[in-house]
């Protein structure tokens, strides 16, 4: 008899983030602030650049670089690389630190 695996989705749901200052903390301590790949244009940039900054999103099904703020802790804004299907956390860094994204990045 064939034994094709029955795929199931959504491996992990409950987030815990390793804050660089405070350690491994529950998601409930953090507040999400969206896509971290959209950087604010210079003040002199054309309006269209601001339209993209504010509204256009990659919204990838895969690795996502995003902001989380540790509101119930040190209040640091953290850049998290998280997979939007499995919720696996690849890295948590401060905004000024370099970040790498596994696999494809858009």
């Amino acid at each position, binding site marked *: 008899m064939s034994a094709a695996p029955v795929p199931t989705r959504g491996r992990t749901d409950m987030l815990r983030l390793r804050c660089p200052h405070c350690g491994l903390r529950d998601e409930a301590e953090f507040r999400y602030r969206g896509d971290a790949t959209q950087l604010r244009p210079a003040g002199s940039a054309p309006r269209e650049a601001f339209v993209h900054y504010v509204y256009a999103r990659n919204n990838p099904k895969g690795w996502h670089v995003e902001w989380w703020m540790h509101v119930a802790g040190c209040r640091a804004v953290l850049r998290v690389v998280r997979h939007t299907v499995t919720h696996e956390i690849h890295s948590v860094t401060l*905004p000024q630190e370099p970040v790498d994204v596994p696999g494809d990045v858009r």
Partner: protein
Amino acid sequence: MTGPTRIGTGAFIDDTQRVSFRFDGRVYEGRRGDTLASALLANGVTVVGRSFKYHRRRGIYTAGPEEPSALVTIIGPYGREPNRPATVTPLDEGLVVESQNRWPSLAFDAYGVFGALSRFLPAGFYYKTFMWPSFAWERLYEPLIRRAAGLGRLDHPPRSAPSPETQHHHADVLVVGAGPAGLSAAAMLGLAGLRVILADQDAHLGGGTLLDADWQSWRTQMLARLAALPNVRLWPRTTVIGAYGHGVYGALETRAGTQPGSQTGHLHVVRAASTVLATGSVERLIAVPGNDLPGVMLAGAALRYLVGHGVCVGNRIAIFTNNDDAYATALEYRRRGIAVEAVIDIREYSPAADRARGAGLTVYASAKVESILGRHRVSGIKVRDRSGQALTLSVDGVLLSGGYTPATALATQLGAPLHWNSPIAAFIPDLAPSLGQVAGSAHGVCGLAAAATDGLSAATHVLSAFGIAVSEPPDLPTPPNDQPRGDLEPCWEVPGRGKAFVDLQHDVTTADIRLARREGYEHVEHMKRYTTHGMATDQGRIGGLVGQAVLALARGIDVAEVGQPKARPFVEPVPFATLAGGESGEHFKPRRLLPLHDWHVAAGATFVTAGLWMRPLVYSQDTGWSAVLSEARHVRREAGITDVSSLGKLEVAGSDAAAFLDFVYANTMSTLPMGRCRYGIMLREDGILLDDGTVARLGKDHFVLTTTTVNATAVLDHLEFHRQTVCPHWDVTISDVGDHWAQFAIAGPLSRAVLSEVVDQTDLSNEAFPFMAVTGITIAGIAGRLFRISFSGELAYEVAVPARHALTVWTRLLEVGTPLGLKPYGLDALNTLRIEKGHVTGAELNGQTTAGDLGLGRLCKQTADYIGAALVQREALQSGDTRLELVGVKPVDSEQRLRNGAHLIDPDTDDHSLGFITSSTPATEQVGWVGLALLRGGHARRGQRLLAVSPVHGETCAVEITSPHHLDPENARVRA
């Protein structure tokens, strides 16, 4: 005598302790340690409920939470608790229980007519009818359907059951299931020094070993070893209901209450680095016609009732099986002297059958049960033997065993794919090692000894993931050997005449599944939704795979390919009170209290909820306008003091603080002189107003900001976010000091006089301390700050002192001020004052308005960059007829009142709504009401007459459009 009865004692019961209980009004007796189900069986009760759709008689089918049929209502101190499986309800003295889903009684159920009409009520019948006449659905059909649907009834008791607090735990490994695999894994992990939690849904730990006499010694020793380990916690009666990822699990513990029927569910949240899922497997039924008759049960359940409770399910039973495990039941029945008419085995040969024959049992090999006979309960079976001959056997109990299906719910919640395992004819999970291990029959390991070994193997893998090497096997009791086993042979259904059920609660038959396929609902998920198979309270645990197999057969494909419907939390249904975890009712959200809360209470204030804050609304228990207007008028004529401590307060400091404020505010702050305040507006990046407040400059690099109460959190986040991600290299720090400071507004023509008496050595004359000034002060001996700002439109100040000194300063102010005319006023009066003045609050600054809409456009910087600068210039945000702009409104007839939420319409055009009234109040210094509104093209409509209409209240009021500043538009009073 036929039917179930108690023939002796059992391992779980104390024969000496009698327990009496009531079922459907009749009193029965059981033993301590019985479940409600075992006690009912002991008393010969075979029918305990009616099925959902056809109202067929239902008996007790299993001995665990997978029970589909024996659902009862417990009558407890907090009212009825419906849909409880009798199989897991412990028997307490005085327990009162009712059967469900029948009227007027279990024996004579009028709804049984549905059963008689069942041929016209197959799966999905309701999609094909009830459409005509079109009005009849809501008036006639639906009310009838709703009344017939549902199982138990839920009371509305005067006192609600308490909601126990959720507890949180940490562990290295969560072992789920205390069968041989789980016990072994937990012991090995515990001996290695890891923190282990071992949870099992059963009150008795041991899983399959509980029912095998050979295993008692091993089980007892293992439990003693585990209990002796301080790093191992044993959690019986605890079902792990969800695996949420990142090491987080939810578990439901059932604790007995102090009164019968008062058991409660407690939620435990466990954070564990790894897990061993030794969740075992659940026996499944065989879809043979008549398999829902009372007197039919699963073989493993019958064994548990006999071994655990001394209860036999019939006096003359037959067993229909495709596997070796069911023979344990046959042998035990024989040992206890109960007639086993026959074992019907579809297989040609097996070692268990041999052993059974050796013990004197009749075994029909290569045979099948073609139908189960009986009218209201089992009376016999029709067997087709290997030669094709049909025989009828007289029995009063039929035990089915179609195999064991691994409990994979937690593994699939963790994303483990499922693979078909032919030897057990079921799916097993493939869990990623980084998440944990599956052990024992949960992934197809057959036999108790094999499971124990597998548990040790799982523990070894977990230990290695922790970096702990295992050099020698742990010093644990040796388990007995498994007897030789034969393979199972898949047997899903025996086709034939008569209803063969795959879902006993929802009355889903094999015919329904074939019908679903005929109609194109042939994907397993469509079949499930169309037939509702597996969607009942038992979630299809004993019949799910059987139904899926029937679907596969109908489609002509392998069972392995038909797939599985999604397994969703919860593994066991969870009560509302449990999941709420004590944070409901009064405790749903915290209360934030002002530093002066107690004073306001003592002063007789009525409070209002503003977000999470409790703020004094008016200092009176009369909440009508007269008390509010009295307070407001007193401010305008003399002086008032109000508590504004809930405002957001931020200290912004650093050599780039001024530049930062220029960036976050639409107006310019860097030009603010020291010792001065400025009204500030912040935009979102899309150009819409975010918040307004004040900025005070206390030093070259030191500013104090206030925000509105409601937006304090949002603004702080907004500033922090931009500071850390957009301007990270600027020298600026932001501190949230909202709770550090108490702040009071003192307003009115006499406010200067009052403050001069209380504030030490500060010249408060208009020349020395003009409008919008700020300075440090000493007041009542306390160092604080004084701002001259006005929300009310009168001469006004705000005093800020450290919160712990609030009472001292407030009391002093009133002590000195009351003889001078000072009185406290609340939020309602403050609102009246600001509306007259035309100051905006969240009603106008509502997340949809621009600065220009509110008449503040001139404040926005024209050339420099700031948050919102680019997009605020978009054409759609510019003033004009499309924008809702801030205006004042006044009724033409001063006797008429205004209502917030009334819309403004022009009776002469066919436009519907032109806008709406946002804030309104009776005026303090004129007759009649005044208000603010957002009106399409409002800036250009001054002087127009429109209608304010509120159709929901049946009100119409002619209004005049005015300036929003109803009072002192030149600001003479605030500059006095």
